[in-house]
């Protein structure tokens, strides 16, 4: 299953709630302000290990945090985003 988080974890509990409910086998895609959850050394970084976490490259770059990402966070472009949706049988947006 694919989970999509678009909220900054520093303003909203969507990311924390998502990580608390995502199965280990699921993938979490960070888009929009959700990419801030991928920051290295943040106070929510511990949660990144609970599932496979991927961030949307263009939203990372727009916010200037390419060099600040935690290890293990993969990046995809929009084509990769489409592939993730196609490869997972259901998709939940944590709006």
């Amino acid at each position, binding site marked *: 299953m694919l989970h999509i988080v*678009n909220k900054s974890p520093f303003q909203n509990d969507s990311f924390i709630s998502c990580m608390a409910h995502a199965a280990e086998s699921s993938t979490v895609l960070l888009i*929009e302000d959700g990419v801030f959850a991928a920051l290295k050394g943040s106070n929510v970084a511990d949660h990144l290990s609970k599932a496979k976490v991927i961030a949307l490259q263009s939203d990372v770059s727009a916010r200037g945090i390419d060099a600040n990402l935690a290890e293990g966070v993969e990046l995809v472009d929009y084509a990769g985003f489409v592939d993730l*949706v196609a490869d997972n049988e*259901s*998709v939940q*947006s944590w*709006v």
Partner: protein
Amino acid sequence: MKFSIQVNEGPYQHQSADSAYNFVKAALEKGHEIFRVFFYHDGVNNGTRLASPPQDDRNVQQRWSDLAKEHELDLVICVAAAQRRGIVDDGEAERNGKDATNIMDGFRISGLGQLIEAGIQADRLVVFGD
């Protein structure tokens, strides 16, 4: 594969309309089918033709309209949400006695059932919102 998209936020205020647009474009480029894009909540504001964004910024509403024309997309605005927010086509203007319309070319206004149908008919439904 067949995708349906739900857009819950208006243009400019929130990035979700941009994310949805970029996703739809990428899906089409990869050869997927977009069964329907359904605009709900403030997302109905993606369908006004009366916006005039600055020249150096993207035109979110026009961009949807152009993409719809190019790929024969079904862009559906929820009627209940549209009535609350004043997105009006000819039919709505007549029914509700409004003196103008503002719907953008390429969009149509219809019921919430279209969202459920989009979820049933498509292989995947992706929600973009706040």
